[in-house]
């Protein structure tokens, strides 16, 4: 069934979009990532103009994250206090990121920088997570108890705050910095930033994996809602019909994904996310390294 999208001005298959939304929704619920880093390239591929894809994707992430976070609220796996601290940092970061983005756009190389950002961040994070979770799986097989609550320099900082749900008593400075960094990157790369934040929360802040997913989703809702409004009012690129098709699949997928995620072991969850991140990274790296079939591309100007 073909549907004409009023803002994107292309006609697409409705079932294809429902299916894509569903798959990305499952991943989103399982790993606490918005799924934007997967969906946005997929939308480019089926012929949605990039500006519309990025803006509409933000809107869809709001829906799937909201659906996911409700499921986590029921299980009390959302650290609201930590989420709020991250959010404050995130909004500051997003505002900074938009300024950086506009500066790069004026230089004419924003596409390349976005892709390089993706490759570097996905590669480093995916690689580190993969190695760490392999070690953890090996250790549990040998019967060693995993070490938790490592004490490092982070615990020596001032302005300590108790995060009861996460079982942490740490300074608010590291979560704020993580929030800002994620906000900047999210604005530049046009994603919610979950795939950066989840590892940062696990490895930098030492939060338990189960709490990380819900808390990350909670923060993503607000950052992507902010982004959606920004795109809708300045660039007019949010396609509501496209968003509805994607989010119907997405919210259902997110519910299924959350249930799968809860049944799985934390190490397995992490290694799967690591593999997925590495695959996307590899694909983007190949795009930069191999000669493209079409050297020329069309961009509109003043339209």
């Amino acid at each position, binding site marked *: *069934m*073909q*549907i*004409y999208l*009023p*803002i994107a*001005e*292309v*006609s697409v298959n409705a079932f294809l979009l429902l299916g894509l939304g569903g798959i990305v929704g499952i991943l989103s619920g399982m790993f606490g990532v918005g799924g934007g880093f997967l969906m946005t390239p997929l939308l480019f591929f089926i*012929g949605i103009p990039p500006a519309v894809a990025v803006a509409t994707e933000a*809107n*869809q992430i*709001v*829906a*799937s*994250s*909201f*659906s*996911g976070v*409700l*499921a986590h609220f*029921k299980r009390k796996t959302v650290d609201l206090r930590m989420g709020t601290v991250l959010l404050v940092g995130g909004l500051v970061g997003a505002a900074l990121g938009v300024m950086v983005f506009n500066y790069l756009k004026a230089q*004419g*190389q924003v*596409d*390349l920088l976005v892709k390089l950002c993706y490759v570097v961040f996905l590669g480093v994070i995916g690689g580190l997570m993969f190695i760490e979770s392999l070690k953890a799986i090996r250790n549990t097989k040998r019967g060693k108890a995993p070490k938790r609550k490592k004490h490092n320099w982070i615990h020596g900082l001032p302005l300590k705050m108790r995060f009861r749900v996460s079982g942490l008593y740490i300074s608010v400075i590291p979560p704020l910095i993580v929030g800002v960094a994620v906000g900047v990157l999210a604005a530049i790369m046009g994603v919610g930033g979950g795939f950066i934040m989840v590892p940062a929360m696990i490895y930098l802040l030492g939060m338990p994996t189960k709490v990380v997913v819900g808390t990350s989703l909670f923060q993503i809702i607000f950052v992507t*809602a902010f982004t*959606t*409004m920004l*795109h*809708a*009012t300045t660039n*007019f690129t*949010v396609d*509501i*019909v496209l*968003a*509805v098709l994607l*989010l*119907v699949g997405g*919210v*259902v997928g*997110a*519910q299924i994904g959350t249930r799968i995620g809860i049944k799985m072991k934390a190490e397995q969850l992490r290694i799967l996310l690591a593999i997925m991140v590495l695959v996307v990274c590899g694909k983007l790296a190949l*795009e*930069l*390294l*191999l*000669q*493209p079939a*079409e*050297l*020329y*591309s*069309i*961009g*509109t*100007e*003043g*339209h």
Partner: protein
Amino acid sequence: MRGFFAMISCWVLLASVAGAKEEVVLGLSRNTVSITTNFDGSEILVFGAVKRETPIPAGSDLEVIVTVAGPSYPVLVRRKEKRFGIWVNTDAVEVDRAPSFYAINTSGPLDDILSAVEDQRHKITIPQAIRSVGAPQSISDAGAFTQSLIRIRKKSNLYQRNEGAVTVEEQTLFRTSVTLPAALTEGGYDTRIYLMRGGSVVAQYETIIDVRKVGLERWLFKLSREQSLIYGLLSLAIAIAAGWGASAVFGLLRR
């Protein structure tokens, strides 16, 4: 009923070329294309007759060219080059005006029925329909950018060259069909019919096919441009409602 009137109103006579002995009488299967939610491209039948008061001129045969051009916009064409081992956008050329859609249907091989001079005067072929002036001085092969634009749009069926797609009967009746792809831009689609003899245009007729979004499509598009804040909030409200709805439904299912 509206379509019927539209069809009737298209049967308009026009004396286009002063003193011409042959004139075009044209019909269109439709003169408006409505983009609805389930719009999946459209086909327009262009048909007509040649009106003449004198006998059919001897010598060369009558040939017909039909062109349909969508609204024109400036387009930025970029080229990638390998720098430091990776493929990077380097040069860019702005094409001043390029139609968003262009179909040219002819009754025979274009090179035989249309002379270069006439093509330049009437801007009939695709390269002529694109206006590109003043590429940056650093780029020596600006032509390659225009050619790539044509190549890319031909691939997505936005630019079509259909030689032999017009049937001409008894040098009097002609008809052809133009396929509009699903990815259409709104606007007036300039439709021209040229009668050709010996490579030159002997008569010309021009009309406009109106392509418009209607119903929900129109409403959403207008809302997004004129009330963008409300549109944005509406998008968010739908997202939140859908997220909550799915959660509630799954909650019920588990019970």
